[in-house]
């Protein structure tokens, strides 16, 4: 592999890993803090992508806005969605066994998929990136790199930085970190744990929906995109350690690298490679690389 190609592949790996991080960070927070296994997380990503497609005409009609206006509307809707879902379906799961959480959220996947099918249909759709981001910059003599992909990476980095600041510098962040380590302690400190959960859940949903929305122009929108993302996010969380946002970032980037170079170097085993890596890491560290607490 030439050095230039190698660098471009690294860029690809970085972009894929960062997007993965955005989806997985919400998942790991919900796991770590609320102790709820949320199989429906992939569905939120799918819902986000479909929102980017289906909301755009309405947003354009009502507000005259484009992609970013849709993004904003979608973000508001997703927070509301997360808030309502937590209240309706998740709030009584905390005391239940994991198994029941698995089932409930499995049922939710089916419901979300079918509702999507009823409301938007089963067709594949493309979503247009905003014009000023639609260009490409030349890389080497043949290749160009789409500006929008760089934009995604930049947004992900910005969000990761924002999450880091919120988690380490704010009172809410302290409560969240404490909640991931010791739920009873947080409760004994007089924090409204119910509220904390609702906020975390809404934030987790919003992250996944947002990831789906900004990914839509490059990923296109299709049924089944949710479960694909879900499984790989599980691997991210398993490798990174439950509840650790830092771990999720590290693991997502690692998976980006293994997946990107695996496809080129070992095309026949590309699907398996990520899982083999996971097995090796578990052998070495059963709790993941950065276990919270």
């Amino acid at each position, binding site marked *: 592999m030439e050095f230039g190609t190698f660098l471009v592949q690294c860029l690809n790996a970085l972009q894929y890993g960062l997007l993965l991080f955005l989806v997985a960070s919400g998942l790991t927070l919900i*796991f770590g803090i609320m*102790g709820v*296994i949320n*199989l429906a997380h992939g569905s939120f990503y799918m819902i986000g992508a479909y929102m980017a497609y289906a909301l755009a005409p309405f947003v354009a009609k009502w507000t005259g806005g484009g992609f970013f206006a849709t993004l904003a509307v979608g973000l508001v809707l997703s927070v509301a969605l997360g808030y309502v879902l937590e209240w309706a*379906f998740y709030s*009584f799961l905390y005391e*239940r*066994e*994991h*198994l*029941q959480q*698995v*089932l*409930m959220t*499995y*049922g*939710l*996947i*089916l*419901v979300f*998929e*079918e*509702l999507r*099918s*009823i409301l938007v249909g089963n067709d594949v759709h493309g979503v247009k990136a905003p014009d000023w981001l639609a260009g490409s910059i030349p890389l080497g003599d043949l290749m160009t790199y789409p500006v929008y992909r760089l934009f995604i990476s930049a947004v992900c980095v910005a969000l990761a930085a924002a999450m880091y600041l919120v988690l380490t510098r704010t009172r809410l962040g302290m409560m969240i970190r404490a909640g991931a380590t010791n739920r009873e302690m947080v409760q004994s400190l007089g924090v409204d744990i119910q509220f904390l959960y609702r906020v975390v859940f809404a934030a987790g949903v919003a992250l996944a929906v947002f990831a789906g929305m900004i990914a839509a122009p490059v990923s296109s929108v299709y049924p089944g995109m949710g*479960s694909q993302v879900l*499984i790989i996010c*599980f*691997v991210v*969380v*398993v490798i990174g350690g*439950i509840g650790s946002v830092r771990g999720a970032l590290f693991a997502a980037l690692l998976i980006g690298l293994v997946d990107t170079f695996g496809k080129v170097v070992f095309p*026949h*085993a*590309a*699907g*398996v490679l990520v*899982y*083999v890596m*996971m*097995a090796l890491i*578990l*052998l070495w560290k*059963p*709790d*993941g690389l950065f276990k919270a607490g």
Partner: protein
Amino acid sequence: MDFRGGRNVVLAAAVVAALALFPLVAGKFGIDLVTKIMIFAVLALSLELLVGQTGLVCFGQAAFFGIGAYAVVLATPQYQAVSIFWLAPLAVACATLYALFVGSLVLRTRGVYFIMVTLAFAQMAYYVFHDTPLGRGTDGVYLYVRPSAEVFGVTLVNFEKPVSLYYVALAALVATFAFLAVLLRSRFGRALAGIKANEQRMRAAGFSTYAYKLAAFTLSGAIAGFAGVLFAVKDAFVNPELLAWHLSGSLLVMIILGGLGRLWGAVIGAFAYALLQEFFQSQAIFGDLAKHWLLGLGLTIIAMVALLPEGLAGLPAAVSRRLARKPARSAGGNA
């Protein structure tokens, strides 16, 4: 408990008798359907051993099932029948080995982590059959010739006949059920129950719980592989989707639907799930909505978790509680 008193034995005998007589009155489709359900009941029993009896929520049971099924097909040469008496042990051994490998890793983890890791390892097996030359592709593989079951030149069972397959599946179900029922009363079974109730205490008493759990996990994988063998022989066709996580999810729904902690709950669950699916897919009842039958299934699962956490087997108790207006006692104890 399951086996106190004769009533349950009589009931079980009646059910087995009814199943044994069923082919006399049923059409081809009925025989086929029940054969399939019984195979899934064996599979559900394997999962019940883990989830209901040992407290290990495995979200990757389909992998062992699929490996068993694939092993049968891949080990059979294209145009030559192979004896089931070495094919089945071979296939079960493959599933068992993978379960041993996965178990030794995943049992180092706990709780939510365990669920996700079992899922991830099942996906790994899925991709091996899906993408690598070993699995011969996404379209699946045929078993051109079903295995033979000959002893000294006498054919014991003809697997080409659906009725024979039916009775093989019934025998397998009864044998698995009986084996597990006996196993659960043994010291091993009681130790698993203890681990489910309170693993910390079991370790303090001197049980190496890791070894016990690994044994249970491996055994469960072996039984799932056995179910896979039956499935491959019945359908004579395997596909990577047999290992997909949707099947693992459905299996969990089955055993919950039937009721956890009871062997017959898994069997009831397998039957109930199949019928529920037929019900929601029925155009006669739902018309065009039958297209969206997964919506009905999803809502049912959600309602079940919310209202009937103990499953169908717990229904009588739940109803009488409702009637007596007594508060529900927590099912899990200190899990």
